[in-house]
């Protein structure tokens, strides 16, 4: 599972950690995040993230 970076603020989504602030369980791949999910630091929606190599 790859990590994804927010292009606006640089926050990194790590699937191993998930995003407890929005009820996302550890182990959730980026692709499975709901459309309503946003960057917890800056509010950017999913399509403003880029996959890290």
């Amino acid at each position: 599972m790859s990590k994804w970076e927010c292009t606006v603020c640089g926050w990194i989504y790590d699937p191993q950690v998930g995003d407890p602030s929005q009820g996302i369980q550890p182990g959730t791949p980026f692709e499975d995040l709901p459309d309503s999910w946003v960057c917890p630091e800056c509010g950017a929606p999913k399509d403003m993230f880029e996959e890290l190599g």
Partner: protein
Amino acid sequence: MHLVIVGGGVAGMTAAQRLRALDPAASVTVFDADPHPYYLRPGLIEVVAGLKHLSDITPHSREWYEEQGISYRTATQVTRVDVPSRLVQLDSGDTVAYDRLLLSTGADAFCPPVPGAERYGVFTLRSAENAERILGATEKSRTAVIVGGGWLGLEMARALAVRGLEASVVEREEWLLPGQLDREGAGVLSALLHEQGIHVYTAVAEVTLPEKGLLRVVKDSRAVTIRAELVVVAAGIRCRTDLALRAGTEARRGVVVDDWLATSISGIYAAGDVAEWRGHVYGIIPAARDQALAAAANMVEHGSLRYRGSTPLNTLKVAGVDLAIIGDAQPRGGRGQELRHIDPANGVYRKLVLDGHTRLLGAVLLGDRDGVRPLQALARSGASLGDRVQGLLAGEYTLP
């Protein structure tokens, strides 16, 4: 049911989308004075740095909101709330009726009086228009001074340094980020900034603009003059409470809300940077979002969702450097025992705060991203660190 939102920043837009989902039958309208459709404010730093355009930080077009069933009126200021008739008045003179109203008018940049500013001009950064004006001014300037050494001031300094300006930061307190960092940590941060070509002046008692292009500071009773063709003030925020105050709601620093984000006037709610909850004005996006979600729920069904506060951001990037504050990091000392690892050559500063039983109470990590999760877990677990202390202080996080 007409749900009206004044201010389409992150709080207003989060609430609009939640209201839309909670009550498909209601109509949802957002008014915003800004002519540009909703953009991500943190990205304005990159706009100032010349690395991004406004379009890069604008997630959706105006039409997208309309497609979501949100009526979105940009370049429209709400000038008055008529509480007895439940109407808002627009700058065009039109009035619009509401059943529930959300005030999410955000905050302005706070600009303390700087003698000479009225003559030579200073900039602040809050809106896209501000960012474009600063960007324009960078084309005619080679030197810049940022008044205010908080995280926004430091980010500004980096952005202007990236634009090729010689940037300086002046701060009234004795060291940078005094709310987060102690003196030693701030020293390492200053050294990192210095490497990026950013000058730091702390413990500055007085700032004036004596003539065009110059800024004069008094430090340790000595006056220093700094070249400053561009002056940006980054001294915190001031809640935009005027509309709420004129409507008659209770306001102190911000518009006072209860645990349901309700103001003192029935049917009117507030969320985001404008709101003051139990004495807190958070001024950060995660809190604006949490409040907006709770406000939306209560606008549809009052009492349905209680707001319990937000956790302040504990990791941030200042001028490209990772900084994490974990637990009780006691920036100005305290009961806990403090252990420090100071490594300016590698740009690392690590401080652990322990109780008498080597339990981790808090930590500060500068330039050390890997330590954030393990130390957070250790602080939360409350376990005794025993003989791991020295290893952790040296940045050895994996158990042998």
